């Protein structure tokens, strides 16, 4: 393998970030766009080159894809614990390289058109590069701490990009919320790292994940509340992953994050950063699977399933198209988690793992496409809301077709990409747990319903009168759409199970015909309902929502999760604890100190009178002093 090439992949965006960031105001928009796209292009080519080298040239070594590690010490903690910086090449990291490069390149190109004329154009590209660099670092990480470092960095790039329109209050609030919620989750992650580091003595994925290694054969060095400490560590790490991947109940930041520019939503909040949580669980999959017979993995599965359902229901009721897509993302991420959660380890048992990665891959393509299309639409009509759209297929044919491809892909209609991965997931879930399978298939139907609801709402539906006649976006925006549409339609045919499986050996996956038919039928039903309700503007939808009443309101208000959080943070943390601490500090702690000071002053005022100049007082002091001294001497002498 050519390590120079691999190491260059993250370093090029870093260099771009530094150049654009430092000379922010000296570089014109034209140059910065070119530098950004050029840098990304080189990175992408290198990524594909690496993938080719790894899968095709190097291939399997003794029946499994090898793990290649190249690292250098960054900081030493103790004799055993240290932070390395390096690259780890294995099937999933190579796959992630492809995903990140492809999407990032497309988004870079798209942004040249989308952000045209924005005053922070150069800044925007530098942030994008920072994000891409961090994401590369994350997927290539060789150990828990390295992944944590880049985890934080993607978090901050996300913060900067969500808050890109920093004069908008809502954007600032959303950025803050995203950062703090994920930071809270990262707290779990960090504590998990500390726990695992303490009990296993290493942060290296290689050592931790080795099925024959000491960690996995002796997974219970100590227990806490009936569970192995390693299980606790893994649960805590999953909390970190859940925060980034917007799993219930840490999902509340994702819909708000749509305040960022749309290309950002496509890149960060749909395709790459939010899958970091899934990637993290996959990265530690052997640990999740072997420690305590996969107890933590069960939690992953159930949280994933619930989030998938929860988000899909909310997505049905939202009117902001980006928010619909955000909840859709959350729902699909839930799918991936669910698939990971039900996966086995060896051979075709690893179907869940493989399908999860597969879905991650296809989802990145079609979800990025959906966002970019949405961006294109928003660009044209200057609004995020369904009510301002309708009949747009007449004005924006390329966008329309791309969106349709993506919608079909996410709904799981063959032969589009989503069908293949989703089918594998459902098969994997069905093998493990029927209940979760029912949830999964129900969510599949909901997915088709909500995505076609906005599809019909945007491109069909009522005939809006537009102030400015909407026009198709410029080439810089439509070219990425076309590329991604082609990818969304075709990537499903990649034989993923050959390349990716938990034990790296690969296996043969095949379509389970009855399962596939069921899934497609459910999806078609969903599409059909959407067609009935939303194709033409009819009162049907509103009547239905009225009929559902409370249920609809609840879903529309996102089950009041924001309000709950607001209550907890504002009333309990902010007004309760923080205000309490501030008050206590001024009044009690400082008050005590001031009291000491004041009582000293008071005391001195009192005893100031002793030096009164009155002979009698002195005499009194003299007598008392003499008496006391005499007593003292007597006592000392006699004893």
């Amino acid at each position, binding site marked *: 393998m050519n390590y120079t090439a691999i190491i260059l992949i993250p370093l090029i965006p870093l260099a771009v970030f530094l150049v654009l960031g430092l000379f922010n105001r000296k570089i014109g928009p034209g140059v910065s766009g070119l530098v950004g796209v050029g840098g990304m292009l080189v990175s992408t080519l290198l990524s594909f080159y690496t993938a080719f080298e790894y899968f095709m040239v190097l291939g399997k070594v003794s029946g499994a894809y090898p793990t290649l590690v190249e690292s250098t*010490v*960054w*900081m*030493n*903690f*103790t004799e055993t*614990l240290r*932070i390395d910086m390096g690259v780890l090449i294995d099937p999933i990291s190579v796959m992630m390289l492809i995903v990140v490069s492809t999407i990032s390149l497309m988004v870079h190109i798209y942004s040249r058109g989308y952000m045209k004329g924005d005053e922070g154009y150069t800044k925007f590209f530098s942030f994008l590069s920072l994000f891409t660099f961090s994401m590369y670092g994350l997927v290539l990480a060789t150990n828990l*701490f390295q992944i*944590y*470092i*880049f985890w*934080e*960095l993607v978090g*901050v790039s996300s*913060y900067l990009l969500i*808050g890109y329109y*920093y*004069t*908008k*209050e809502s*954007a*600032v*609030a959303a*950025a*803050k919320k995203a*950062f*703090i919620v994920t*930071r*809270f989750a*990262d*707290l779990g992650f*960090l*504590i998990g790292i*500390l*726990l695992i*580091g*303490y009990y296993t003595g290493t942060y290296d994925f290689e050592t931790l994940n080795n099925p024959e290694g000491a960690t996995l054969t002796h997974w219970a060095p100590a227990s806490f509340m009936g569970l192995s400490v390693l299980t606790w560590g893994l649960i805590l790490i999953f909390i970190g992953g859940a925060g980034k991947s917007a799993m219930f109940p840490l999902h509340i930041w994702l819909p708000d994050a749509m305040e960022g520019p749309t290309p950002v939503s496509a890149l960060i909040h749909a395709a790459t950063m939010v899958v970091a949580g899934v990637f993290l669980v996959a990265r530690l999959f052997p640990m999740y699977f072997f420690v305590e017979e996969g107890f933590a993995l069960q939690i992953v599965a159930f949280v994933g399933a619930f989030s998938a359902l929860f988000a899909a229901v909310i997505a049905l009721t939202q009117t902001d198209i980006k928010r619909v897509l955000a909840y859709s993302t959350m729902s699909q991420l839930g799918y991936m988690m669910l698939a990971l959660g039900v996966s086995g380890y060896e051979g075709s048992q690893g179907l869940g793992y493989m399908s999860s990665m597969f879905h991650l891959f296809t989802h990145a393509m079609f979800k990025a496409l959906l966002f970019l299309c949405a961006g294109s639409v928003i660009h044209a009509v200057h609004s995020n809301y369904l009510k301002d759209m309708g009949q747009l297929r007449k004005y924006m044919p390329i966008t329309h077709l791309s969106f349709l491809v993506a919608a079909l892909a996410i709904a799981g209609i063959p032969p589009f990409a989503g069908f293949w991965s989703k089918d594998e997931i459902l098969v994997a879930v069905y093998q493990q747990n029927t209940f979760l399978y029912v949830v999964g298939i129900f969510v599949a139907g909901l997915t088709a319903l909500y995505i076609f609801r906005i599809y019909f709402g945007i491109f069909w539906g009522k005939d809006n009168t537009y102030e400015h006649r909407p026009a198709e976006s410029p080439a810089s925006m439509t070219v990425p759409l076309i590329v991604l549409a082609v990818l969304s339609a075709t990537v499903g045919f990649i034989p993923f199970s050959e390349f990716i499986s938990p034990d790296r050996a690969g296996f043969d996956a095949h379509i389970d015909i009855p399962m596939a038919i069921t899934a497609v039928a459910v999806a078609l039903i969903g599409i059909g309902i959407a067609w009935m309700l939303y194709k033409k503007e009819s009162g049907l939808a509103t009547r239905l929502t009225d009929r559902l009443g409370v249920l609809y309101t609840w879903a529309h208000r996102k089950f009041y999760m924001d309000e709950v959080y607001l209550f907890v943070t504002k009333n309990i943390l*902010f007004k309760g*604890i*923080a*205000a*309490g*601490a*501030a008050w206590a*500090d001024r009044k009690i*702690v*400082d008050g*005590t*100190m*001031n009291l000491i*000071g004041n009582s000293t002053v008071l005391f001195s005022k009192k005893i100031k009178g002793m030096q009164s100049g009155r002979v009698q007082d002195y005499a009194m002091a003299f007598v008392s002093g003499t008496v006391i001294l005499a007593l003292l001497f007597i006592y000392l002498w006699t004893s």
Partner: protein
Amino acid sequence: MDILSLFIVVPLLTVLVLLTARSLKQARMIALIGTLVQVAMSVNLLFAYLRERAVSDELMLFTRDLVWFRDFNIHYSVGVDGISVALLMLTALVVLAGVFISWKMEELPKEFFISLIVLSTGVYGFFISLDLFLMFVFFEIAVIPMFLLIGIWGSGPREYAAMKLTLMLMGASAVLLVGILGIYFNSGAGGGPLTFNILEIAEVQIPVEAQKLFFPLTFIGFAVIGALFPFHTWSPDGHASAPTAVSMLHAGVLMKLGGYGVFRVAMYLMPEGTLHWSWFFIVLATFGVIYGAFAAIRQTDLKYINAYSSVSHLGLVLFALLMLNKTAWNGAIIQSLSHGFMTALFFALIGMIYERTHTRDVTKLGGLLKVIPFISATYVIAGLASLGLPGFSGFVAEMNIFVGAFQHPEIPYRIASIFAVSAIVVTAVYILRVVGMMLMGPLKENSITPMEKATWYEKTGILLMLLPIIGIGVAPLWLSEMILESIQPFIQGVL
């Protein structure tokens, strides 16, 4: 003249020359040259240290010993190890930055710079002293000018703040003096003469009962200046009233004397006392870490926010020191450096913002990124560094502290570390709150007036502190190796 005594002589010479200055221009030029020489000296010291360390395995290098007071066996005794060298560099850089930030100090400039440099002399002396008494003398030299600097050049209720700060620090040094004398009078336990020399005392086993008695005194004496909860209340008021450069120097350097003293005197000389008392002070420190962060959330005055943030961050230093292992100690020292640069940077930026908007109330500010982009962007970076973002020194320090603290074999200590770790979330909250309210969002009245962009001296001052933060954050290995090497003998002494 040996290389260390220069650190006392050069500032004093600068002060002497400053006495002849007749205008602001002259005063600041002299101060600038003086502090530049100090920075050059500290860089030179760093390289000399690295060269010397390669060939010598003495505990302290460049030692020098002159009898000062024969009757009490007080010596002028100096020497450095990696920790002192790092802290000396911090001091030199922050003082230099402080001179840049005070470029336009119109009011009594000569006296201002003199006080500033006297203060720095005390700090230098403290870091190089190997004699407890000498150390104490320098400690006092460092504290006294604060009173003048806040009382004369301060703002707001400055007399109150100056008085409070000085009284609390003086109270602390009274306690400290008792502790030091306690050490002194027990230093003859090995049969030798009574001595103030740290290295000599370390050879002697101070009786355990005496250690139990004098450790808390010494610890509290030092920890007050390190803003240990609940003795931190001088710091918000003091910082809020102090002029910019003084806040920088105070928070950036002076508060580091606490951790350094705890490490070098209290813990090194009284290991049994440390073990006996550590749980108690860990509770205080952990509480302080979280409490400071929460208190910072509610403040509206920028300086108060930063002061409470310091309480939280320096709480971590003491917390890490008490965890008694070298990873945590390494983290504590790096945290001292990192916090020194970060908080000095913050105060410098706050000073600049105040100069332009005439308010420090975050609720009255908004959208500053638009009007003063350089200062605001630096503020964002400083904020991110402060909340422990990787790539900045704060992350390196905190991770060392957390990993180190988590290596403690006893479970309650590890639970305490989990509490301390949780402060990173609260820190994020108050930092982002300020950034969101003050720098982002729509412009508010105070921000609309056309504002001067950052001037060259302001930028220089900012960069002087920003570069080390990033430098340590990106490549921590050499620094942590240098510190670890110096910690090694201490950890053997204590454990």
